[in-house]
């Protein structure tokens, strides 16, 4: 065997990655983030909110008292608030500018806009309303009003607690970003003036961006929601009270502890169902389902999907720490499906939902798993969306497979209403569940280490969701599931009710696996290079009484990963080589009595990020002609039918 190697050392890359790691670890730290006595979280920002929905006017009127504790190491002389609904106040908000960049955007109609106005703000009894101003820390967009800053009468010292009183009114939009109304269905998210997160480097209060979500401190939310009597309400937390307040209205009080957000929904049409998740070693969880009437009969699918997420999430990562979870089946056209909020998720089903197709199961599992990666481990979704979306996508695919849920391809026809299940195509966990096709087409769009809110809006999800899921699964195959499971469980345990940074996960990986995987994160996290290993040439020719087999393996992408190269001979023998994958090319030559049959690069498909797996193998008995015949005949009949359809017009 001869082996040719070409290429540079990567010592410099490793050194650079260490430097970047040190740098990353200094971001986002909060000095006093230990759980408060008797609590599970630091409870740095707790809200008492009283809100009333004016159904006729589509408006909210609210007041809140925030008990906020400065858990950073430094004093602060101002407060910063998110006013998310101002993203839909006018077309010049950063959210709408970015949404237009993403393309395929229809301008909202005149009655679709939403907004939020703070009408009063007091701190320690001092009126500060007139001192509020809008800031745009991310892009300097003077027209954006999604972040409000207010100077404090006196600086808030580290670990000091202050009370903040806010009053506001808001116009409920037609659906934007999973928020708004359609008919008499409301989904109300990111709806109240909400503090940013203060860490040791200052305020982390990003503007609302089209491609990213949210970030907030943990606390206790005590929310009183007044809606028309007869409207069913679901909200983060657990319902503790319901009272009629006259004028045809009812007040619903929800309380959630150690959560970092609260969303709610209301509609007179919800059908309510409850089941309890029971597991021999995990805490019981009451699952409350608010189902649309037209989806009657799909209750069990929602419950089973949620239970699967709670079960496997609990077994693999750690127990779901709350005793309740509300699943909302969103209204048609509400745009509120497939979203996570603490102890409340929105699923998303269809009127016709075939049993062999994974809707609504998959989205329900995904959002329920966000309770672990987002809800309990409080990642900064503005900057590191991959830490929850990617983890959740990976976990979702794994749960789907573990739970044995049917998952066939089902395109929809006739305006998207009528599905047809294609039983020939069962979607796989590895490539479909982890969403390889989307990643393949946008692999170089952005590097995950770039703050997510700076990603190109049209392709951000492919990096946050797809790429992360693919590299996590690659890591699973590289290290083995028991190791990765320990990594995830350790990481979950350490960062429960806290805000981890990327370096915190990477250090957990290195520590638990006992390996330095910095090189792997250089490729997957810090870079946007693609992986593409290929068989460049493969021959096996008679040389005397033996065969000379030559396999040239090529690295076509710039990203590097060690791969196995397996050559199979006609006598059944297999030779496995382990190539570090660094050089541009490696050539293996064998002199053996048997002719070779095939060569495969990464035959176990450890490297799921390889964007072109077809070129990973070559055989001396190729069947491309047979496959070409089969599929061209299949397509031929499709084309004939197309022509016959056009014959209608003759």
């Amino acid at each position: 065997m001869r082996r040719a190697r070409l290429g540079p050392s990567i010592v410099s890359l490793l050194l650079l990655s260490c430097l970047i790691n040190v740098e990353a670890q200094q971001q986002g730290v909060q000095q006093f983030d230990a759980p408060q006595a008797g609590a599970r979280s630091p409870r740095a920002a707790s809200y008492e909110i009283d809100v009333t929905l004016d159904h006729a006017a589509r408006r909210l009127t609210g007041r809140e008292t925030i008990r906020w504790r400065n858990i950073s190491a430094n004093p602060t002389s101002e407060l910063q608030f998110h006013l998310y609904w101002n993203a839909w106040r006018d077309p010049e908000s950063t959210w709408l500018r970015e949404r237009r960049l993403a393309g395929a955007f229809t301008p909202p109609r005149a009655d679709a806009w939403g907004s939020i106005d703070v009408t009063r703000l007091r701190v320690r009894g001092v009126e500060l309303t007139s001192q509020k101003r809008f800031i745009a820390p991310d892009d300097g967009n003077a027209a954006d009003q999604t972040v409000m800053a207010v100077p404090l009468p006196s600086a808030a010292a580290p670990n000091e607690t202050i009370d903040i009183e806010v009053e506001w009114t808001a116009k409920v939009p037609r659906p934007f970003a999973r928020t708004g109304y359609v008919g008499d269905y409301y989904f109300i998210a990111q709806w109240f003036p909400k503090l940013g997160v203060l860490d040791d480097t200052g305020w982390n209060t990003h503007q609302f961006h089209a491609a990213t979500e949210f970030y907030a401190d943990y606390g206790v939310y005590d929310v009183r929601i007044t809606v028309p009597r007869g409207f069913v309400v679901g909200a983060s937390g657990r319902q503790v009270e319901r009272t009629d307040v006259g004028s045809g209205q009812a007040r619903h009080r929800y309380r959630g502890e150690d959560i970092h957000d609260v969303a709610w929904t209301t509609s007179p049409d919800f059908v309510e169902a409850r089941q309890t998740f029971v597991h021999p070693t995990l805490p019981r969880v009451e699952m409350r389902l608010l189902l649309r009437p037209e989806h009657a009969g799909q209750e069990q699918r929602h419950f089973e999907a949620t239970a699967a997420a709670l079960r496997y999430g609990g077994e693999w990562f750690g127990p779901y720490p709350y005793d309740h979870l509300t699943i909302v089946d969103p209204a048609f056209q509400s745009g509120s499906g497939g979203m996570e909020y603490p102890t409340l998720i929105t699923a998303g089903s269809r009127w016709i939902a075939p049993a062999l197709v994974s809707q609504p199961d998959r989205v329900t599992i995904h959002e329920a798993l966000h309770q672990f990666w987002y809800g309990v481990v409080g990642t900064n979704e503005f900057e590191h969306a991959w830490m929850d979306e990617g983890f959740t996508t990976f976990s979702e695919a794994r749960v789907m497979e573990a739970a044995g849920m049917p998952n066939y391809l089902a395109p929809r026809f006739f305006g998207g209403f009528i599905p047809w299940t294609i039983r020939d195509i069962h979607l796989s966990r590895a490539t479909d569940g982890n969403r390889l096709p989307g990643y393949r087409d946008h692999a170089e769009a952005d590097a995950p280490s770039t703050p997510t809110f700076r990603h190109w809006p049209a392709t951000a999800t492919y990096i946050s969701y797809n790429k992360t899921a693919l590299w996590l699964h690659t890591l699973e195959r590289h290290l083995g599931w028991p190791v990765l499971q320990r990594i995830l469980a350790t990481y979950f345990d350490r960062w429960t009710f806290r805000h981890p940074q990327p370096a915190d996960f990477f250090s957990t990986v290195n520590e638990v696996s006992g390996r330095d995987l910095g090189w792997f994160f250089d490729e997957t996290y810090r870079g946007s290079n693609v992986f593409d290993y290929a068989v460049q040439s493969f021959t096996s020719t008679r040389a005397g009484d033996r065969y000379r087999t030559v396999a040239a393996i090529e690295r076509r992408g710039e990203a590097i990963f060690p791969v196995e190269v397996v050559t199979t001979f006609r006598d059944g023998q297999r030779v496995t080589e382990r190539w570090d994958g660094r050089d541009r090319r490696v050539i293996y030559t064998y002199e053996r009595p048997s002719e070779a049959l095939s060569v495969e690069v990464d035959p176990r498909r450890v490297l799921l990020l390889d964007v072109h797996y077809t070129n990973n193998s070559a055989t001396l008995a190729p069947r491309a002609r047979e496959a070409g015949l089969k599929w061209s005949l299949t397509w031929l009949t499709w084309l004939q039918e197309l022509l016959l359809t056009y014959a209608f017009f003759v």
Partner: protein
Amino acid sequence: MTTRAWLDGWGRVLRAPAIVAGMFALTLAAAVPFALVLRGEIEAHLGRSLAAAAAADGVSYDWWQEFSSQASGIGATFTPLVLGFASTLDHVSSVLDANGETAALAGLAAAYVLVWTFLSGGILDRYARQRRTRAYGFFGASGACFWRLLRLGLIAAAVYGLLFAYVHRWLLDEAYGRLTRDLAVERTAFLWRAVLYAAFGALLVAVNVTFDYAKIRLVVEDRQSAVGALRAAVAFVARHTDRVIALYAVNALAFLVLVAVWAWTAPGAGGAGWMIWGTFAGTQMYLLARLVLKLQFMASQTALFQASLAHAGYTAAPSPVWPESPAAESIR
């Protein structure tokens, strides 16, 4: 009379198997060159990869998606919608949703329709005469009627173009959008869409049936004027609305029965070896049946028209030279 025309139509179709065979061969021949191009693309993409074995033995969706990511032109139309009954749904849905085709396939479809237009003269002539006309007679009639059928076809194309460009957009985009804008129930939205499909479909059928009879009058009555034939067709449909609609409905019902049977029996991807040809043969049977139904529309409508004529003298006076008008067949 409707039932008699329908049965009569079947007789005319079955007694002219050469037309069925010829049109089937035409449809196949039109598609084969494109399929060969796709075959070349698939083979080139698979090369000597082991992925070819998975693709040959069943469905390798993983490979398929990788192929699609780099495909363009006709390769981009090679999607899972080509599998089994999804193909039928795809085509019917595309018409009702006014989805366009790729440039290559739109060109092929236009050429195919043009050839149909040419052959329509011979087909209608044969079905009207109810006797063998041989190739000479068939193509003679096709040639003699081509330019007038083409003129009629251009009018039809303009009307269909207006329907899809304006009426469809108004109904299925604008009206549907307005009607469903505040709907929170998917089922109700679909109901509205179904109603609008029905409205658009009714217009489509009205135009289709009118032009069908215009072609029949053009050929059977040996008319020269496409506009005249169209006016005569409108008059015919107006005078015999019940029969025309009933016959169209019976034929449409037969089509729906065929599609329903196909939905249950359509083969999937199948395996390698002889199964490739077995699967192909099965789908060809379905396509043959669809073609026969298309021809049955033409034959039965011709039969209804001829049965509805008061007497042969009603038709325009035909020249009794070959290819004379098939109306001459009725002169006794």
